[in-house]
């Protein structure tokens, strides 16, 4: 019983740590994106609040909290209020299974540096990412506005299409590491990360998560020049803020997923494992921001055709080849 209680307390501590880190990281991701994009466009980005604009996220938070919370008269009130929460919660829950450092040896106990090492951890992540669609879709539907509805529809179609490609890209990794547990997957890529072993899966996965996070070049759901702001057109104040935070949390989740599945997780020379994990996640996030600053938006039919006619068949082929290779190797 004592042991169970200790495990429980440890989980709560890890939960608090992860939650605090991730939420503040998401806030600063917003600032980082604005700064980096600014630099790429020969601007300075926000630099008025605090030194180097470092207090900007705080100022934004206060502004969003003080804004009036509008609900359109015709809106489906409760669904409207629920949608942003779904979007944020699904992103936050994902961190429960992500191993962020090497296991810690303390007082003769081995403490795994993951909130909960589920043996179906990968499927858990996948389930959450497929549920994240609801936040966007319901937000778009409940607003009772044309722009929001169209944005929601686009987001749904895009997310379920690319989820398929994402799932197919993960299969070779699971086949090679023989486990759904993320800890086991990290352990399986000790000498070489999966990005080198499964380059095609890596490529498909990167493209799919970019579409999954609805970022440029796949940001049709919120294409400003056609749909105002897509599914969150009618949202204001902190409800909009929750969609916004959800989006950046999602950026970190996907960065962490890419790190764990393909970039070797927390493995790395010299530095402590937490540092390596953070470096990789932030590197992926920087890459996403960089792409946003560089690439134009795709057309909607191009996006769908690319997902279904190129990525999905490629993913299937990749599974076939990997399976044959594994079978041949024995």
């Amino acid at each position, binding site marked *: 019983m004592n042991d169970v209680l200790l495990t429980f307390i440890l989980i709560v501590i890890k939960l608090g740590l992860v939650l605090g880190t991730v939420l503040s990281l998401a806030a600063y991701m917003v600032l980082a994106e604005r700064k980096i994009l600014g630099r790429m466009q020969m601007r300075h980005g926000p630099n008025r609040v605090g030194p180097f604009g470092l207090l900007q996220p705080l100022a934004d938070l206060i502004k969003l909290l003080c804004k009036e919370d509008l609900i359109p008269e015709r*809106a*489906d009130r409760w669904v409207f209020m629920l949608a942003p929460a779904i979007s944020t919660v699904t992103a936050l829950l994902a961190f429960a299974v992500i191993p962020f450092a090497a296991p810690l040896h303390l007082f003769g106990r081995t403490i795994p540096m993951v909130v909960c090492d589920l043996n*179906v951890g990968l*499927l858990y992540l996948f*389930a959450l990412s497929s*549920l994240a669609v609801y936040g966007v879709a319901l937000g778009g539907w409940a607003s009772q506005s044309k722009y929001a509805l169209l944005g929601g*529809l686009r987001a749904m179609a895009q997310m379920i299409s690319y989820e398929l490609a994402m799932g197919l890209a993960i299969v070779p990794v699971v086949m090679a590491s023989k486990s759904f547990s993320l800890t086991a997957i990290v352990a399986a890529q000790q000498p070489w990360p999966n990005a080198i072993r499964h380059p095609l899966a890596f490529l498909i996965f990167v493209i799919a998560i970019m579409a999954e996070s609805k970022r440029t070049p796949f940001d049709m759901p919120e294409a400003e020049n056609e749909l105002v702001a897509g599914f969150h057109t009618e949202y204001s104040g902190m409800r909009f803020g929750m969609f916004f935070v959800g989006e950046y949390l999602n950026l970190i989740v996907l960065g962490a997923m890419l790190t764990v599945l393909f970039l070797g997780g927390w493995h790395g020379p010299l530095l402590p494992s937490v540092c390596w994990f953070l470096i990789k996640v932030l590197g992926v996030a920087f890459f996403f921001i960089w792409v946003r600053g560089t690439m134009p938006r795709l057309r909607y039919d191009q996006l769908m055709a690319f997902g279904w006619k190129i990525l999905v068949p490629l993913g299937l082929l990749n599974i076939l080849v990997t399976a044959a290779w594994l079978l041949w190797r024995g």
Partner: protein
Amino acid sequence: MATLLFYILATITLLSTVLCLTRKNPVHAVLYLVHALFALALLYFLLGAPLLAAWQIILYAGAIMVLFLFVIMLIEPPVAESRTSGRVIHWLIPAILSGSLLACGGALIAMDPAATNAIASYWMTPRDFGRALFVHYGLAVEVISMILLFAAVGAFHLGRRYRPTTKEDVS
């Protein structure tokens, strides 16, 4: 304890399904159905099949229901709701249902915080599951998937509207 949880979860599933059947608003119906699927997934977990629980959420809640929602959003004109939708009853029932689901989930975690020792007497790992599905019942699975393929092709054929193809009809 596990038996009690089973009955609570079963009640939640049934209630949500009944509510799904009686809703006038199709999107609300879909939401109740998703809720029922969640409860069902927890039931699978309780019965010692975490893989099945995960697939239940990924496939049914995450993919099939989203498709339902997609179709509803495409064809159903948004129902103009009046201000009466702000009444307590509109959120009380969903709140009670999802609250009890959350409590059940919490109880499951509290019984087994590290997800290592099984609650059920039978615990099926993903490996066992795959072996049972593709080795023991391999032929049956193949046959069923072929039948599903026929069904899909048939539905596609029946659902296709025959019309003279014009030059504009490229897509």
